[in-house]
């Protein structure tokens, strides 16, 4: 892992792009110094200071060896980003105390310092002003020695990190509870601890001209599809943006079908999930500063797969998966089907149901369609408010929401009771698969609209449109509906159901086409 190397490659890329149509960051490009470092310590310090001017956290500390007066040194770093102890104990103290006159036949003093004096595990020398400035910004310490046009970059960064906690968004009953954090290095450690294999590869790059966000592409080199990997690299290289704050930026920038409400790039905050996906031949993209690690390719079955499925008994897992799939389909269709039957096909209702529905509609002024749109909107408003509110205010929202969605609306004859019931059912079903929220909300409104103009035919027609849309989708060349359209062979083993582990001998097709065999079943295995 070499930050300077990746930094260098970034600058190399920038230089290339300067000649192209890159205008986003012309000012910062201009400020990039073509100057080389000089031999004079003061000149060098002034050079760095001038580049990082108007920044009061910049610390410039000069010191000198006790014995060799010529060894005037200086370290430059940003206050707060480095560990004081490391600087004091492993940079300043050794340089101050060691007897340089005695020990060193000073041909190249800097090299001698590097090899014999400075106590630090990560140390690189550099002549490039840009990379030196970059290192300071990233929290490294830069060491100058008078008389040398070369500086040492010393790793001493240390800042507050969030502890590894269980992700709020993906809870489970059984399974590992570690979650990714905002630190890329920590995340990589979490993954590496799960996949101890030399073929686990990491590729670093820096995206975002101002944020200079580290992005790491991880994969297992003998399983991953090279076409997908190359396509991913191409798409990442294409990104030319000033900043990446969260992996969501990248998720949207590299995805297929940008206008579809269905996800084509997955994410997880759990290292166990990402490790499992890597083992299936997928590629993970870790973005520094984001606990959500992206995985590609992402196909529709992954929406229904939960990590717990694989840790629990396969019977329960299959049942849960059935519940999730039917819940998602119902969440989308229930309001539309109800709408269609009640306003177009009353003859399809049993007489007692017709009578009670009719009774509940008496005196309600709005048409069913309108009241549905309003109630579903109110539900989404409440959901959004609840997600964004501080906990203390959230309580109030819940109470008001329950009233709005409950008794009061019926008593005031604004909507009929069944509409509220259907809205609530549909809303709860949506939350069962929160990952597909966007898709569910929009397809639900779409189907409801179709139902309100064409009845049950509209629902069927709308559903057909959605299915056609899904079957035309690809995620990095992999069909989006892969392995749900066929259940023969090994295709259906991990889609509608979760087959027992001993039968899942193959990895998913196409994604891991290069190396399909996941396990060979031992002869002594009893079944």
């Amino acid at each position, binding site marked *: 892992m070499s930050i300077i190397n990746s930094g260098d490659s970034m600058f190399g890329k920038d230089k290339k792009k300067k000649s192209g149509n890159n205008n986003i960051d012309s000012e910062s490009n201009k400020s990039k110094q073509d100057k080389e470092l000089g031999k004079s310590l003061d000149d060098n310090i002034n050079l760095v200071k001038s580049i990082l001017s108007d920044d009061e956290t910049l610390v410039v500390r000069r010191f000198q060896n006790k014995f060799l007066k010529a060894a005037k040194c200086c370290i430059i770093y940003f206050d707060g980003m480095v560990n004081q102890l490391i600087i004091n104990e492993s940079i300043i103290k050794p340089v101050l105390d060691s007897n340089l006159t005695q020990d060193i036949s000073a041909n190249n003093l800097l090299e001698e310092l590097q090899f014999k004096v400075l106590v630090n595990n990560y140390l690189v020398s550099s002549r490039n002003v840009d990379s030196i400035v970059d290192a300071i910004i990233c929290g490294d310490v830069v060491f100058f020695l008078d008389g040398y046009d070369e500086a040492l970059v010393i790793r001493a960064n240390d800042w507050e990190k969030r502890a590894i906690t269980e992700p709020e968004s993906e809870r489970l009953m059984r399974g590992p509870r570690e979650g990714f954090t905002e630190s890329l290095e920590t995340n990589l450690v979490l993954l590496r601890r799960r996949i101890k294999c030399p073929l686990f590869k990491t590729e670093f790059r820096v995206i975002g001209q101002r944020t200079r966000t580290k992005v790491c592409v991880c994969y297992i080199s003998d399983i991953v599809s090279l076409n997908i990997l190359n396509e991913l690299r191409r798409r990442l290289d294409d990104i030319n943006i000033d900043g990446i704050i969260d992996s969501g930026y990248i998720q949207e920038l590299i995805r297929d079908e940008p206008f579809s409400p269905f996800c084509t790039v997955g994410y997880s905050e759990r290292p166990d999930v990402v490790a499992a996906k890597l083992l299936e031949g997928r590629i993970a993209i870790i973005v520094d500063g984001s606990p959500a690690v992206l995985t590609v390719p992402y196909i529709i079955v992954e929406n229904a797969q939960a990590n717990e499925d694989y840790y629990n008994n396969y019977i329960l897992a299959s049942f849960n998966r059935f519940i999730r799939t039917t819940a998602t389909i119902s969440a989308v269709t229930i309001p539309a089907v109800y709408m269609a039957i*009640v*306003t*177009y*096909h*009353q*003859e399809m209702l049993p*007489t007692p149901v*017709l*009578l*009670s*529905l*009719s*009774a*509940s*509609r*008496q*005196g*309600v002024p709005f*048409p*069913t369609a309108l009241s549905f749109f309003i109630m579903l909107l109110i539900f989404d408003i409440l959901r959004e408010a609840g997600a964004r509110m501080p906990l203390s205010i959230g309580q109030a929202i819940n109470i008001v929401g329950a009233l709005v969605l409950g008794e009061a609306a019926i*008593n005031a*004859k604004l909507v009929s009771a069944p509409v509220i019931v259907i809205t609530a059912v549909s809303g709860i079903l949506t939350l069962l698969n929160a990952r597909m929220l966007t898709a569910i909300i929009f397809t639900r409104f779409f189907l409801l609209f179709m139902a*309100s103009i*064409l*009845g049950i*035919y509209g629902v069927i*027609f709308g559903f057909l449109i959605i299915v056609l849309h899904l079957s035309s989708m690809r995620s990095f060349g992999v069909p989006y509906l892969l392995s749900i359209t066929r259940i023969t062979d090994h295709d259906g083993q991990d889609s509608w159901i979760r087959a027992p582990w001993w039968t899942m001998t193959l990895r998913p097709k196409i994604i891991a086409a290069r190396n399909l065999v996941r396990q060979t079943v031992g002869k002594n295995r009893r079944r």
Partner: protein
Amino acid sequence: MVKKIRTVMLLLLISLSMLFLSGCWNYREIDEIAIVAGVAVDKGINKNYLVTMEIVELRGGTETQLLTKIISLEGNSMFEAIRSIISYIGKKAYWSHAKVVIVSQDIAKEGLVKIIDWFSRDTEARENIYLLVSKHETAKEIFEGKPVTSEVLSFQLEKMLHNQRNLGKAPAEDIRQFINVLSTEGGNPVAPVISIKDINGQKRVEIIGTAVFRSDRLVGFLDELDTQTMLFIQNEVKGGVIYSEEKVAGSYVTLEIFKSKTKLKPIIDENSLAMEIDIEIEAAINEINDIGDVIGEDGRTQLKHHYENLINKRVTELVEKVQTQYNTDIFGFAIKLYRNEPRLWKEIRGSWKEEFRNLKVKTNTKVKIINSAQLAKPFEVEE
């Protein structure tokens, strides 16, 4: 680009054609329809028909109230009368949930096809509407009856007819069956009979007995006992009660029918035509009203023979009655002949009325007594 436009056009066309190809559909709010529960058809005073509809009216809110309204309309045709409801209540009548059609005897005597046509032709009305004949002068007075189990009389009538198979006192025929029978060779339909009875000062409806038709015209009625016998011949008995007024082995015994199967078999001699009727009944002793032992071997045999003879006698008498009084083949003998002896049927088809009048029947009833319910012996009461 051209391809794109073509796809868009194609999609538009497909979605447009859906509007026209989807058959009957219409946007209407559920509270804006007048749900017709049942209808009675009488002869009109000024126009041909007087159609009386029982319409369900709902009072919503926290407490749901189910009320009915009776509306009578005149018209020269069924549809004319029915559609004119808009002039009275402003809502269109909604027929998909109508359950019963009650016709007056006058209408039934003139022929029911005129009435039925609309029910089977219209898109809303269903063919599984039950058809009833009013025993009273008009059909609409049936709606004066007070329902017991449901707030809506027509819904109660539907339940009464639906469960009739466990009783066997009236045929439960809906319009589709009525039409089916009419359209078979030599078939004559029947219909249940409805009347109003005064029970404890309350007007209650009663469905008992059979209206006998010749083709689609009413010719007479059968009482409840004859109706059960008729259902035996038609193989329509699914359950019910057989009671004999005579003592058997010293007890009055009531049987509950569990299973009944009837087979018709035409017997053709050189000159005469006869119909063999094999009835197999599985029944259980359900009530014993005296101390005579009917459960023991002897008693059981006596009981069995008694009921076999009883049913044989009832069948013979009923067929004779229908032959002489109404001369209409309501039992489905003709269709049996048509199926089993198509050549013979061709010959006698023209003179079937005569043939039916002279048709001999031979009845073989077999009663199998399977148990005596929960008690193994009659009650022995010491004097």
